[in-house]
C-alpha cells in the first residue's frame, strides 16, 4: 500500500510540470503587461525598461520558462510582481481559507445529498423522489453568483441569523459553504438515486429480501454500501468543480482565499502568482483524487490496494 502511494505521489511530478507549462504558456501568450499595469501608461520609457529588467521580463520566454521550472524544482515559486512578496508566502497565507471553504462546501454537499438521494432512490417515482429531484434540478441550475446573494438577503438581511461576508467563526462559514455545496449536493443526490435504483434490482438485494430482511434493512445494510462506491469516485472528480467554484464564492463573500488572489493576479498580469495559484489548485485536485482512491478501498471490499 505504501509502495503504491509513493508511486502515485511520484506521478505528481509530471502532472505538476504539465500544469506549470500550460499555465506559463497561457498567461504569457495573452496580451497585457504587468509593468504597465503597475507603472501606468504615462511611465517614462526608461522606468519601464528598468523595471522589466529587474523583474527579468526582458529575457526571452524560453529563458523565463527555464528559470521558472528551475525555481519550481527547488520549491521556489518566485516573487509576486505586484505584492513584492514570495508567492509561496502569499499562497500559504490564503490556502487555509480556501481549504476551509472547500471542505465545508463538500460537507454541505454530502449532508444534503444523502437524505435527498435516499428519499429519491428508495421509492423512485414517488412524491419524495419528485420533490428531491426537483430540488436537485434547481440546485444544479442556479449559479453561485445568484445563489450567494439570494442566501445573503434571506439569512443575513431579512432574518439576521448569519453574518454577510468575511471569514471568522463558524457562522461566517455557513452561507459560503451552502452556496458552494448546493450544486454538488444536487449532482451527488442524483448519482446516489441512480446507484440505489440499480442496486435495488440486483440479485443480492433480491436474496436479502427473500431471506426475510425488511426493504429498509436490506437497503441500508447491503444496498447503500454498494451504491457508495460510485459516489466516492464522483466526490473525488467533482472536487475540481468545487475548487473552481471557490473562485466565484470567494469574490461574493469577500473570502480571503487563493481564488481571490488568483483573480486579482490575472487582472494585474502578476505571472508568478497566477502560476503558483493554478499549480496549487491542480495539485490539490490530484491529491484529493489519490485520497479518493484510498477511501475507495475502504468502502469497496473488492478493491485492495497492494
Amino acid at each position, binding site marked *: 500500500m505504501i509502495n503504491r502511494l509513493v508511486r502515485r505521489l511520484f506521478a505528481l511530478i509530471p502532472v505538476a510540470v504539465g500544469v506549470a507549462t500550460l499555465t506559463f504558456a497561457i498567461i504569457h501568450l495573452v496580451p*497585457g503587461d504587468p509593468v*504597465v*499595469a503597475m507603472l501606468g501608461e504615462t511611465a*517614462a520609457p526608461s522606468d519601464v525598461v528598468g523595471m522589466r529588467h529587474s523583474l527579468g521580463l526582458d529575457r526571452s520566454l524560453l529563458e523565463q520558462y527555464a528559470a521558472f521550472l528551475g525555481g519550481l524544482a527547488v520549491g521556489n515559486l518566485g516573487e509576486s510582481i505586484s505584492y513584492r512578496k514570495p508567492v509561496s508566502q502569499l499562497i500559504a497565507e490564503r490556502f487555509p481559507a480556501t481549504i476551509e471553504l472547500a471542505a465545508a462546501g463538500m460537507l454541505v454537499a454530502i449532508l444534503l445529498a444523502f437524505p435527498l438521494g435516499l428519499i429519491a432512490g428508495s421509492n423512485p417515482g414517488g412524491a419524495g423522489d419528485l420533490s428531491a429531484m426537483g430540488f436537485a434540478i434547481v440546485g444544479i441550475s442556479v449559479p453561485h453568483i445568484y445563489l450567494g*446573494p439570494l442566501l445573503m438577503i434571506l439569512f*443575513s438581511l431579512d432574518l439576521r441569523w448569519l*453574518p454577510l461576508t468575511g471569514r471568522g467563526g463558524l457562522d461566517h462559514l455557513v452561507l459560503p459553504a451552502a452556496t458552494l455545496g448546493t450544486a454538488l449536493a444536487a449532482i451527488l443526490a442524483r448519482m446516489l438515486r441512480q446507484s440505489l435504483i440499480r442496486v435495488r434490482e440486483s440479485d443480492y438485494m433480491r436474496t436479502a429480501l427473500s431471506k426475510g430482511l425488511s426493504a429498509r434493512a436490506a437497503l441500508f445494510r447491503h444496498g447503500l454500501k454498494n451504491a457508495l462506491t460510485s459516489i466516492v469516485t464522483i466526490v473525488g472528480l467533482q472536487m475540481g468543480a468545487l475548487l473552481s467554484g471557490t473562485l466565484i464564492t470567494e469574490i461574493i463573500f*469577500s473570502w480571503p482565499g487563493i481564488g481571490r488572489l488568483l*483573480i486579482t493576479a490575472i487582472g*494585474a498580469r502578476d505571472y508568478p502568482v497566477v502560476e503558483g495559484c493554478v499549480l496549487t489548485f491542480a495539485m490539490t485536485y490530484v491529491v484529493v483524487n489519490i485520497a479518493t482512491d484510498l477511501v475507495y478501498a475502504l468502502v469497496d471490499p473488492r478493491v485492495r490496494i497492494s
Partner: protein
Amino acid sequence: MSSRINELIFDSLVRNGRNGQFVGRLAQSIEHPSPTKTVYHLNHGVRFSDGRELTARDVLFTYNSILAPESMSPKRASLEELKSIEAPDDYTVVITVAHPYAPAVEIATEGIVPVGTPLPAQGTGAAPMGSGPFKMVAYSRDEFLRLERNPYYPHPPGAAQSILFKIVPDPTVRALELAEGVCDFAGNNIQNDVLPWLAADRSIEISKTPGNTYRYLSFNFRNPRLRDLRVRRAIAYAIDRNAIVSTVLLGNGRMATGMLSPESWAYEGNVTTYSYDPRKARQLLDEAGYPAAKDGTRGLRFEFKTSPEGARIGEIFQAMLQRVGIELTIRTLEFATYYADIQAGNFDLTSLQWVGINDPNQYYRVFDSKKTPPHGENRGYYSNPEMDRLVEAGKTTIDPDARKRIYAQVQQLAADDLPYVSLWWVDNVAVMNRRLAGFEAYPNGSLRSLATLKLAAPDSSGQPVASIQ
C-alpha cells in the same frame, strides 16, 4: 481607490481644489518669482502622526525618493517637467521646471513622508507615515484597511476616531452591506440599478452631486474612413446620449460638451454640440460618399472594442448606429487585454472615461500629435497642427486669463473637429447610512470629507465603515 485613501493619510504642498485649481495645504503661501520657479512657504507646526514636525527637509526627501531610479515609482512620470527642488530653509521649498510650464503646481501634489521612510521597493511592509488627518494602523491586502486619527492633527469636534475600509469585490454584496448596516459609506461604487432599492431603505441616504468624470467615444485616425470629419459627425449625431443617460445611468450624469466639466475654471460651454439627429447623420454619410443600399447599410463597418463592463453601452451604440446605416461589430475582451490594445492604439472605436481631470493640460496629453503611443495618451493618433499649437501654448502660458482664453479655443476646436465624441460627465453618487452627518462631495470624487464626518448615533465601536472595491 488608493489615491482616495492617500488623501486622508498624507498632506501635499498643494492639493486639487474644487474648481480644478490648486490650493495650498502644507503651503501657507505660493510665489512665482519667474516663469520656471515656484516658491512654497510652509505652515509651521504641522506634525506627522508620530509627533515630528514636517519641514522642507521632509519635502525634499519625498521628492528625491520618488526620483531615485530604484524607486520604480509610478509617480516619476508626473515629475518629468521637474528640473530641481531645493529647500533654502526649513519652511521654504523652491521647485524649478526646465521650461515655462503652466501646471507646475501640479508637481506639488505628492503626499509628503518623513525623512528616512524606506522606499516601497525595499518592502518593509510598514505603512508609511503622513501628516494628514489619519494614520494607517492595520492593512490586509484584498481584505481591509484601518485608519486611526493622527493625534497631532487639528480634528474638528465629533469627527470619527477611526475608519475601517472594507474591500468588497462583488458589486451586489456592496449594496447588501449598506442595507444591512455593516458598512456606512460607499463612494461611486454602487451600481445604478440597485440605487432605487437602496433609496427605499429609510436608514440610507444617497448623495448625488455633479462629477467631472468624463465619458467619451474615441476615434482612431489611422482608419482612413474615420479621418473624414463627416463620418465622425454622423456618428456624433447618431448617438442618443440623453436616452443612454436616462436609461443606463438612471439619470446620474450630465450631457458633456467637452473634457472639462462646468466646475473647472477653464470650462468653455459655448461649443458645437451634437444633439440626437439621425436624419442629419444619414445626410452627412450620403455627402461623404457612403450612399445607403436597399437594406439601409452603407458598407461602413467599424470595430468597437470594449471590456465586459462597457459591453452594454457598446450594444446600444451598435443599435443606434445601425439606424443610420453604420455597422458596428463589438469585440469584448478581458480588461487587461482590452486596455493593452487601447494603449497601443489598436482599435477603430472605443469608449472610456477620464477620471479626476484637474488641469486643462490634459488636452496636451491626449490630443498633441507627439503624444501618440507609446509616448502618451493620444491613442487615436489625432493630428491637427492648430490643436498642437494651442495645447502647447496652453502648457507654457503662465498668465491665468490668457491661458483660459487659449483653452476656450481648444474646447471649441475639439468640439468641431471631434477627435472624441463627448458623451457625459458621470455624477458622483455616495451612499451612506444616515448616522453619518456632514459628508461633503467634490466633483472629482474625493473622499477628503470622511475626515470631518460626524457620527450622529455612534455604536459601541464608534467607527464608521466604508466599503471599497
